[in-house]
């Protein structure tokens, strides 16, 4: 059965102040209802200030990175009326499209808008916090071009990467909200709200498609409705309509003149646009002569890619690329951290790579250093010191000590039980704290026992 999936994606823009007032946009460490003023509280009489230009430019930049055309006519900011406890004025302000007709990874981008976040409402306790109210959002609407949960996941990963690359969205994570619409074989369109991770998106789609297919198999119609994704149970559930007022009664906000995205503004934003992920991938393959798989892993995050380029000034790119893909990326994935969050610096990486190429550090010890940097937030320079291989003289001393302390094993070896040498090697490693070059130690043991 043919499945059609489309998205509405909302992500917060990384501005200092809110969209229509100068209250702080970053509320992460704020007490409830402290990042507020009469404007974002929607108090009687409050009027919006001018639209935050940084937010407008952010949306233009994202629209351009999604290959949209930028609207040249005046862009009205509309009032979308609906009744919900998180909306202090009874309407949400949302712009008409700023970008249109874009494309990403084979999926058509219909529209890109600017809008304001509502407050945060807990339906169970009824508590409302307006710190989030008025924070600027970019809204991206795709065509229903996606045909499976797997494709949906791949597309979202790509989209998240582009948003991240744009440098215009909040990096703290956890602020993305996705509404998904799903239909099967031109049946009714079901909208799923309340999805805020790619994993959640995948699971919600899996569940919803199965649900719709089962209904059809039993000869029952799929109802056109809005459903909520229940994260804990990994199911979707019919939702009491929040935003499904039958009619939003859109009007241009009389308090806000339309935005004018002049060619000068668009050109300025375009000229400052960061390199898109796929462009960076191509360039890395050519410039550093690394494989596509390496380049893919390295460009998964712009900060990681930047670090790679800086490391390549000191270290041979092929070796750096292997280290980035197999050691750093693996460590990040294991800890579920982004590079920016990991605490790893370019200096750390250079330190480790140089120690490895000079033979002071084993491959395993190199990985250990990176892990310790992430877990202990220590610097590589001191860790390398601790983990670097012992020199020849110390190794010799360790070998002597191992032989002297383990006469029985020595006798066994000399009596023909060759595997006893492994025990002796283990003792050398113990004495050196694991910092011995195993091959060299083995060679020394054989020489001394022959």
């Amino acid at each position, binding site marked *: 059965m043919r499945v059609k999936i489309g998205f509405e994606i909302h992500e917060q823009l990384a501005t200092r102040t809110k969209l229509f007032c100068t209250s702080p946009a970053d509320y992460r460490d704020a007490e*409830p*209802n402290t990042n507020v003023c009469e404007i974002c509280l929607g108090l009687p009489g409050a009027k919006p200030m001018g639209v935050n230009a940084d937010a407008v430019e952010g949306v233009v930049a994202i629209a351009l990175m999604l290959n949209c055309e930028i609207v040249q006519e005046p862009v009205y900011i509309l009032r979308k009326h609906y009744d919900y406890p998180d909306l202090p004025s009874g309407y949400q302000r949302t712009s008409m499209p700023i970008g249109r007709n874009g494309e990403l990874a084979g999926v058509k981008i219909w529209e890109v808008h600017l809008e304001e976040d509502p407050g945060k409402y807990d339906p169970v306790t009824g508590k*409302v916090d307006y710190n989030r109210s008025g924070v600027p959002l970019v809204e991206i609407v795709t065509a229903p071009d996606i045909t499976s949960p797997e494709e949906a996941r791949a597309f979202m990963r790509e989209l998240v990467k582009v948003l991240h690359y744009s440098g215009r969205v909040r990096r703290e994570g956890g602020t993305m909200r996705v509404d998904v619409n799903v239909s099967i074989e031109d049946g009714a369109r079901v909208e799923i709200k309340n999805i805020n991770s790619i994993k959640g998106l995948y699971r919600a789609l899996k569940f919803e498609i199965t649900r719709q297919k089962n209904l059809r198999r039993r000869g029952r119609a799929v109802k056109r409705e809005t459903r909520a994704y229940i994260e804990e149970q990994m199911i979707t559930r019919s939702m009491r309509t929040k935003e499904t007022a039958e009619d939003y009664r859109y009007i241009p906000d009389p308090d806000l003149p339309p935005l004018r995205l002049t060619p000068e503004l668009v050109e300025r934003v375009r000229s400052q646009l960061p390199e898109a992920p796929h462009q960076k991938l191509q360039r890395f393959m050519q410039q550093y002569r690394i494989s596509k798989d390496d380049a893919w892993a390295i460009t998964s995050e712009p900060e990681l890619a930047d670090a790679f380029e800086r490391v390549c000034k000191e270290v041979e790119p092929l070796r750096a690329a292997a280290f980035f893909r197999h050691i750093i990326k693996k460590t990040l994935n294991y800890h579920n951290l982004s590079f920016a969050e990991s605490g790893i610096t370019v200096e750390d990486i250079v330190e480790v790579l140089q120690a490895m190429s000079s033979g002071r550090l084993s491959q395993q010890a190199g990985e250990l250093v990176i892990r310790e940097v992430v877990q202990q937030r220590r610097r590589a320079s001191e860790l390398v010191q601790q983990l670097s291989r012992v020199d020849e003289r110390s190794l010799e001393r360790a070998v002597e000590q191992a032989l002297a302390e383990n006469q029985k094993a020595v006798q066994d070896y000399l009596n023909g039980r060759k595997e006893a040498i492994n025990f002796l090697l283990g003792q050398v490693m113990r004495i050196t704290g694991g910092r011995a070059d195993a091959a060299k130690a083995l060679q020394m043991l054989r020489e001394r026992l022959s």
Partner: protein
Amino acid sequence: MSRAEVVREAERVLQELAKHLEEIELEETYHVIEAEGVREDSAPERDSSFSEAALSIAPRRDGRYYVAEAGAWV
């Protein structure tokens, strides 16, 4: 006059008014002035005496939270 009567009468008022506005071909006027309506992002401002004053007039609150209906949208 009851609220239902007001609403009924309102529709008659509407028809009386609207009958004077026949179809015309003209652009709509949404705004009578040209304003740029855009500002530079700036250092954020916070006024704790304001947020206290605003919270103090809430009909229902719980600590620093405003309180709306509970359970109705679950």
